[in-house]
């Protein structure tokens, strides 16, 4: 089976400071990879390098494109990469307002991404937007409301609908449940899990919340000081951690 994403010896520095280095892994279709580590461990830098928001100093990010098979994203032209970002890739930001257009209606937010890939028929776009609002459990009556009138949890679900409407194959998520109430988190996790399963999505999820990765991620990478210190099946890494830092991380979680 061809990996959907194959990352090889990725490195990003900020002057003398190492953002992330020596990162290599394969992600297969339908798999969710969690990346955990404390603030400053390089997990967000890594995510941004993978998603094309930052240019790494070294390494390869090979994506199995629909048209041409595996290609190094870093060697693509800017328009090609931007097209990928609108079609096969999606990015869910921690703060929904970074991923939404706040002065455009909910339906417009979802429809905009469809129009970016060529949809022009207003009725069809609106119908698809309504369908997706339903899937993320936003009442159809809110389609013409702006996200500024939504709660935090609804904004996050709207951001997910906007991202998934073009049926991407790979979703990058930066702390997707961060800053939400626990009850809203559970609902979002359930939604994401269902979408991963039903649409065969692959995802890379950066979070510091070990409970979130246990429920959402199949595999886990633990980062410290810009390096991957441990990697494996999520439950194995959490239940039988090998690296001193992972053991510290797991043993530091407060039991409820």
């Amino acid at each position, binding site marked *: *089976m061809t990996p959907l994403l194959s990352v090889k010896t990725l490195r990003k520095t900020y002057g003398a400071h190492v953002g992330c280095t020596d990162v290599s892994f*394969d992600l*297969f279709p339908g*798999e969710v990879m969690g990346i955990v580590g404390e603030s400053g461990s390089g997990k967000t830098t890594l995510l941004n390098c993978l998603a094309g928001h930052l240019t790494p100093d070294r390494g390869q990010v090979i994506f199995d494109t629909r048209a041409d098979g595996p290609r190094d994203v870093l060697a693509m032209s800017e328009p090609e990469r931007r097209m990928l970002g609108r079609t096969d890739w999606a990015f869910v930001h921690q703060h929904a307002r970074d991923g939404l257009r706040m002065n455009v209606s909910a339906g417009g937010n979802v429809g905009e991404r469809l129009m970016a890939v060529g949809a022009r028929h207003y009725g069809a776009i609106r119908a698809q937007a309504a369908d997706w609002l339903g899937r993320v459990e936003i009442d159809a009556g809110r389609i013409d409301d702006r996200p500024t009138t939504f709660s935090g949890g609804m904004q996050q679900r709207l951001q997910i609908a906007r991202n998934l409407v073009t049926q991407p194959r790979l979703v990058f998520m930066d702390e997707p449940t961060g800053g939400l109430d626990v*009850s809203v988190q*559970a*609902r979002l*996790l*359930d939604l994401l*899990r269902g979408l991963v*399963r039903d649409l065969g999505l692959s995802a890379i999820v950066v979070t510091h919340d070990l409970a979130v990765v*246990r*429920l959402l991620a*199949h*595999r886990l990478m633990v980062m410290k000081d810009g390096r991957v210190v441990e990697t*494996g*099946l999520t*439950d*194995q890494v959490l*239940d*039988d951690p*090998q*690296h*001193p830092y992972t*053991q*510290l991380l797991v*043993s530091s979680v407060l039991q409820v």
Partner: protein
Amino acid sequence: MAMIEIENLSKTFQLHTQGSARIDVMRDLSLRVEAGECVALTGRSGAGKSTLMRMIYGNYLAAGGSLRIAGTDVVTASPHDILRLRRETMGYVSQFLRVIPRVPTIDVVAEPLLALGTPTAAARDRAAYLLTRLNLPERLWRLSPTTFSGGEQQRVNIARGFAHEYPVLLLDEPTASLDPVNRAVVLDLISAARHRGAAIVGIFHDAEARAQVCTREVDLTAFVPGRAV
């Protein structure tokens, strides 16, 4: 056919946060389990029964040896391969239910089938059948099992573990907190799984249950390093 083939398996825990203590818990364990067998792991507390179950499931890493499930060595397999084994081949009924809080019971039970691509209606039918057999009232099916009693949660866990007919089943005290009626149902499910050819490994503290469903007992005390047998 041997569905589980374990050779010279060993396990060590190194506790870096506690003075780098190194604890050897298992040495040179070998075990073969054929299709249609139900093996009970025995031995005193600390003999490594749960540890072995977790190693077979790929939840704990081995320090050495090999552990083949339907031909795939879990000790050296990639996470990708272990995920496939867990989806298709190997089911695990643990003592604890770990689920996303608001997911309805019926979907918790149907999930292993959905993960295999079974249509939703068929997966829910199978879930409903198992929940009915395990006497879980239908009014509870739409609720999340997080607020259920221990015995109810255990039955949800069992229904989930038996939803797909795994060729290999790992059962950690499947009858522990059940009343006699449900205990009998679970023992029936285990026997039926064995007769359809599943290779089963379990921990059963209930001696009668063990006698009723198991074809063999294996005492793990012999594989604990550095202690008199």
